[in-house]
């Protein structure tokens, strides 16, 4: 297992295109945020789930995604500085680390390792994570900026039917549509621009295209070997999908990704040289020790062929989101509802989705990574794991650490658990004679 592998890969013409594009786009994003901040142009803080980028982009309001920024500080090995700064201000070690990284950034001069971290001029926070709302209130108090909470009624429980003819759906749409119209007014006020419905239409059209491409990208990993790692590469796809949602550059990026993956598949090139285990990640990764985390799976030739993260953080683009451009605002409300329910509420009821994914992507096992920071994604994981094992026969590994807090990373323990899991997968294979 520890033997060195030599990769003999065919030369691929598209190789590296995605990486180059994603770096350039991310750098540019930071540059734009810095410029907006310097010019005192209002920037909107928004979140990956329920960003309403469609509306914000209609008014050319630059968007800052504090979750992405927080994640990047961890990857850059800087998160602890900000976490400690926030804890000095009285924030508990037990709350979401993303929130604290952000608070720490604001408290220490807003110097992010990748650029100037802007002040919010407005905030859009959905209820897709309740912590978004608490977080928004921190900025509201600090900067006095307008906060818009998009309230999306989610899944309602046993026996709930959500077809578009149901009364509940119609009521929910009215509520959401009303809120979207309120956000349009607020955005016009903040940006000083008039609402242009044709521009919204154009943006929605781009999101439709991004959604089609994104679905094709995900489906690439049904191939064997899987052409990309849903953890390492997937996170980049996701990041760009969020920051450029609805923009032509976002569409182009998705095209670049798909072309590169298609080529890999055509040549039988996988994310790993020798793929032996196909895994689904439920929860998030640990960004403080991102490479180590992934490495613990890769040393067993385990590849993440899918990740729940690539679903719920995608604002419906994995779920066949498609806007009707003839009635943009109404359709925005409907589609957000239809797609956010399985994304947001799917986190809590995702067992059936997991079973389906396990089958469609021929998954050997599921890694449930519970992170202390994020109760939204993590609180019910042990229960879901048990359900999958008992009802779908898919074995699961439950491990815990954090997104950004390196104090919660216990390397040896993590490695032991992961090794034991792969050993059990191995003996399952032996027993079933595969």
């Amino acid at each position: 297992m520890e033997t060195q592998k030599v990769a003999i890969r065919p030369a691929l013409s598209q190789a590296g295109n995605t990486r180059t594009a994603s770096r350039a786009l991310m750098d540019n994003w930071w540059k734009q945020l810095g410029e907006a901040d310097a010019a005192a142009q209002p920037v909107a803080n928004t979140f990956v789930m329920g960003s309403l980028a469609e509306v914000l982009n209609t008014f050319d309001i630059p968007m800052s995604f504090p979750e992405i920024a927080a994640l990047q500080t961890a990857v850059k090995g800087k998160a602890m500085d900000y976490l400690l700064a926030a804890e000095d201000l009285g924030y508990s070690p037990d709350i979401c680390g993303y929130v604290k990284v952000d608070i720490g950034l604001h408290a220490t001069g807003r110097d992010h390792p990748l650029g100037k971290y802007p002040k919010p001029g407005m905030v859009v926070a959905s209820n897709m994570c309740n912590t978004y709302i608490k977080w928004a209130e921190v900025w509201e108090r600090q900067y006095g900026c307008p906060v818009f909470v998009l309230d999306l009624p989610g899944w309602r429980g046993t026996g709930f039917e959500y077809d578009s003819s149901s009364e509940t759906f119609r009521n929910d749409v009215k509520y959401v549509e009303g809120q979207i119209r309120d956000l349009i007014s607020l955005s016009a006020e903040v940006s000083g621009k008039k609402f242009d419905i044709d521009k919204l239409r154009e943006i929605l059209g781009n999101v439709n295209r991004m959604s089609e491409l994104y679905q094709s990208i995900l489906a690439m990993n049904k191939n064997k070997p899987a052409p990309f790692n849903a953890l390492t590469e997937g996170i980049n796809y996701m990041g760009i999908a969020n920051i450029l949602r609805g923009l032509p550059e976002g569409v182009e990026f998705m095209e670049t990704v798909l072309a590169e993956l298609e080529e890999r598949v055509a040549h039988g090139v996988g994310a790993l040289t020798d793929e032996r285990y196909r895994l689904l990640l439920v929860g998030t990764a640990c960004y403080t020790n991102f490479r180590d985390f992934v490495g613990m799976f890769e040393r067993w030739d385990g590849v993440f062929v899918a990740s729940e993260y690539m679903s719920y953080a995608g604002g419906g683009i994995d779920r066949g989101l498609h806007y009707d451009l003839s009635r943009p605002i109404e359709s925005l409300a409907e589609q957000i509802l239809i797609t956010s329910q399985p994304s947001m509420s799917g986190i809590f009821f995702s067992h059936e989705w997991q079973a389906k994914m396990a089958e469609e992507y021929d998954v050997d096992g599921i890694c449930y990574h519970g992170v202390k920071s994020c109760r939204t994604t993590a609180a019910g994981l042990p229960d879901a794991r048990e359900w999958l094992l008992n009802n779908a026969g898919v074995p699961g590994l439950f491990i815990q650490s954090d997104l950004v807090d390196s104090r919660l990373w216990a390397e040896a323990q993590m490695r032991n658990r992961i090794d034991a899991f792969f050993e059990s997968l191995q003996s399952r294979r032996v027993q079933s004679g595969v």
Partner: protein
Amino acid sequence: MEEELNEIIEECRTAVEDPEYPAVHQWLEENSNGKVLGHFQVYFPEEIAHAAGMLPLKMKGFDSSVQIREADAHIAAFVCSILRTSLEQALSGRIDFLSMYVTHPICDAARHLNGVWTRQFPELSCQILYLPQNAASPHAPAYLLAEYRRIAGIIEEITGTSITDESLLASIELFNENRRLLRELYQIRRETPEQIGLTDSYLLMAAAGAMPRERHNELLGRALPLIRARDNHPQDKLRIVFEGGYCEQPPIEMLSVLQDVAYVVDDDFMIGLRWLTEDVPTSGDPMRNLAVAYLETSDYSPVQRDPRKPKEDMLLKRIHQSKAEAAIVAAPKMCEPGLEEQVAYDNALTAAGIPHLIMEFEEKTTNFEQARMEIETFAESLLFEFV
């Protein structure tokens, strides 16, 4: 007189503290076809269940009397205690009597409850009531009304009883009466805190969620004049407000530590029982009245977003109205919204020059020495200062 009051308090204590839910079992014995609706913290419009003849039971956690045997295998370690103890109650079969279970996504951890319950109890109707998180939106009342109607429809199906305007009005009247009595209890605490200690007052209040309201009204109706008639002498104690009891509750022993050192003249324990701060109107469409009351005449908590009620302003108001000299700003361990709000409260109280103690608690704590020491030191330092 004292004897009668003690009896009432003991009945409330049993209803609140006994993990076997004796008051519910008694109701079920008296109502052979009766159905029970359990609802998780913080607020649920119990009138709707009551109007269909159901017994609404406010699901809470428990102190160390409930041992966690199974719940930990279903829920991650880094969540608050109430999620685990309430789930343990279900997994241990102690609440098999439930016909319906309702949660509201108050926080990111509690949102998982419904998923876990759905997987564990596939036969039970596990529902989520989405209370508006954009409460100030002009679109919220119509949405909430539709949501109440939806829940009412499920209740009607489960009970086979239709909820009429008349039955809902009667329930609203009953619950209005209950909230009036609770307001009076809190008024006594604010005006003459020497007449009733915190633990007894807590038990009298919390029992509302653990027994039929008819019985609770009767008990409170008898208790309040008895409390008022007491002739206790005010002591030289600090007047404080306790904030942080809106969801998980501190153990009773911790409340007794508090009452030893201070007069707790107001608090937010079980705030859902007192969420509606005025009588719900009894004319017009009763369902609409309930929905409007939730949005327009309600208290505050860290789990509701309503920019019309900035939480720190609401806390300051609570402190001023109760003429408190200081505050204890607590949060349950691992409670994301509570811990986040603590910082805002801290800043606002500091700016207003109000002495306060920041602390965490856990319903399952058995060691109160540290809490006692913290609270005593805080109170003593202030008494010294005020003298």
